């Protein structure tokens, strides 16, 4: 035991953990709980049945009410533990309920109907993972449609973003021409213009171009990103110009120089931009909300928003859908965190 304690309190280079270390670790573990707790909670909740979700106080593990098949009834009947007038406890199934009185039967003896005051009974729960929240999603709510829309926008917009931004970055880093500095400053200046303040006129532009209620109306305005141009330009500046001159000697066209020589060397920066772009497009909300008003064009984010606003929200499906929406982002986080953090450190934007 002392060995284990010594191992756990081992530090790199310093003697012992002092009280500031203990305080630090306490802070970190509280942070772990506060940052991951809410997400973990929604994941656990997404495996609960509809009735399990209404339990209060809620349980951490997915408990659902037990039900039984009773002869003479088509649907399965919910089970309750009932305190009988004589003081004994019996497990009964509910046939129907009117007001405060429920009519219940013993699954073993289906002939006899027993009236029970609902105060005298308690749900019988069992651990039950409601995977149907996920499997039924694809039939319900045209979930497949929303998933496809989101994936389409994310993939296509990211591909075009990589192409267009690297082209601009190439021109701005590997050539000297009049107006170059102006163009660069102009592009950087768009960083200062948040999309929120040009919503109305952009709506006009999009509708004039006939892109209203079209996935392309979400894609096109998003593919030219100042962050992307800046990130790639800074990276391309480090590629020696001699490489390009040598290729020109060999009669390579400018386009060939761009994609055969410069692009492969820019791969790490392109990867960072690809990650950013996927996150941006996957998480976009305000602009798609304005462009896409027909529900068959909704992205996952829009669908989530629409369903949570409904009067009778089916939270079991909504939670499952939320968890599915989180999955790609979590995978990116798990495997590519280092790329993201270095990307932020080098460009100062997310």
């Amino acid at each position, binding site marked *: 035991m002392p060995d284990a304690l010594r191992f756990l309190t081992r530090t790199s280079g310093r003697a012992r953990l002092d009280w500031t270390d203990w305080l*630090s670790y306490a802070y970190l573990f509280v942070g772990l709980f506060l940052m991951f707790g809410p997400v973990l909670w*929604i994941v656990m909740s997404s495996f609960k049945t509809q009735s399990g979700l209404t339990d209060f106080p809620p349980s951490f593990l997915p408990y659902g009410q037990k039900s039984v098949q009773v002869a003479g009834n088509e649907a399965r009947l919910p089970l309750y533990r009932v305190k009988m007038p004589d003081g004994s406890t019996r497990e009964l199934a509910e046939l129907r309920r009117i007001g405060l009185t429920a009519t219940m039967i013993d699954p073993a003896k289906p002939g006899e109907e027993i009236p029970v005051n609902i105060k005298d009974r308690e749900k019988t729960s069992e651990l039950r993972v409601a995977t149907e929240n996920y499997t039924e999603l694809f039939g319900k709510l045209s979930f497949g449609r929303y998933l496809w829309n989101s994936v389409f926008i994310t993939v296509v917009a990211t591909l075009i973003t990589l192409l267009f931004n690297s082209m601009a970055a190439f021109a701005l880093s590997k050539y000297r021409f009049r107006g170059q500095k102006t163009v660069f400053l102009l592009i950087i200046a768009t960083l200062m213009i*948040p999309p929120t303040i040009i919503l109305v006129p952009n709506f006009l532009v999009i509708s004039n171009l006939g892109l209203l209620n079209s996935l392309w109306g979400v894609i096109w305005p998003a593919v030219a990103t100042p962050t992307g141009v800046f990130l790639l330009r800074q990276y391309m500046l480090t590629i020696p110009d001699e490489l390009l001159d040598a290729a020109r000697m060999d009669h390579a*066209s400018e386009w060939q120089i761009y994609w055969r020589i410069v692009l492969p060397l820019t791969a790490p920066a*392109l990867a960072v931009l690809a990650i950013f772009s996927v996150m941006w497009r996957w*998480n976009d909300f305000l602009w798609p909300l304005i462009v896409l008003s027909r529900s068959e064009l909704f992205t996952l984010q829009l669908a989530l928003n629409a369903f949570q606003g409904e009067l009778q929200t089916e939270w079991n499906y909504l939670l499952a859908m939320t968890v599915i929406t989180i999955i790609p982002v979590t995978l990116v986080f798990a495997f590519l965190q280092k790329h993201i953090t270095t990307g932020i450190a080098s*460009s*100062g*934007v997310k």
Partner: protein
Amino acid sequence: MSQSAKADGDQGKAGASALGRALAWLPALLEPVMRFAQRVLGARRMPWLFLAPNLLIFGTFTFLPIIINFYYAFTGGVKLFPSERPFTGMENLATLFDCRDYFDPSTCRKDIFWQAVYNTAKFAVLQVGLMVVFSVITALVLNRKIIGRGFWRGVYFYPVLLSPVVVALIWKWILQSQGVLNGLLVGVGVAPTEWLTSASWMFFWVILVSIWAHMGFYTLIVLAGLQAIPKDLYDAAQMDSASPWRVLRRITLPLLMPNLLVVIVLALIRAVQIFDEVFVLTGGGPGTATTFLVQFIYQTGFAEAIHLYGLAAAASLVLAGALLVLTLLQLKIAGGGEIKDGKAKGGAGHA
């Protein structure tokens, strides 16, 4: 340790170039077109061709809309197309600013607008203040010699990656009357609260939720600032056996100040534009307790039955004015030379 980090980096590089190879079909496909273009234009005009797609999109979806926005702000009516809109001069702005007492939104013609302005100002000050404090504390802890630093950094960064809709749904689920928060409260013997329908509580939660969602980003920037402080300063302090508190006040905080100012302005610029997560979480309510400026623009221009584009555009100008002030402040702080140094601390911070 360092070996595994190196292997990790190599793996990342290999992955990146594999990605590059997989995507090479796109430029390859364009090669015949571009070869023809170079023959027609000549090599010297090629850079403009490379720039064209980007400039076209920036022009269409950023610069042109800025101009149109002014036109909308100074015209009236409910028509979308500019030619059908009568010129009304300053009327939209006058409507927004029509108040008997600017400090009491209920005396204004557009009371919701002023409510939104005050909510936004209050939100920005409280949220940014608290968030910077938490970010600095977290960065200080992460900058210590702790086991598994990369993991802990990731913990605080994870919510940054979640979409605003998801963030809102997660917290709505926690805060609802039968939610886990009330469940925990009942567990320790405290009466449950209807968080989602209480105006003052919701304002508090909106601040807390947005800190939860964005803190990791600012923590990273502060952490980078901390790591830039020369180590020998701390060695010297240790030799003088200065107390940790004194080291923090005399070395860390003063040297962190420039970095911190950038963080504050950056966070303010974003806070003023708060919309998505609050809109999904509260819809602006209860009442107008959490209605912010961008939501006012969205509602006036798009969500309500009568689309008052002119009024929405005028409100955008007010927002743009606020952002301009903040951005100029930022450029002044950053010294303007940041771009040349290879760092553009992005103003609005959007793509």
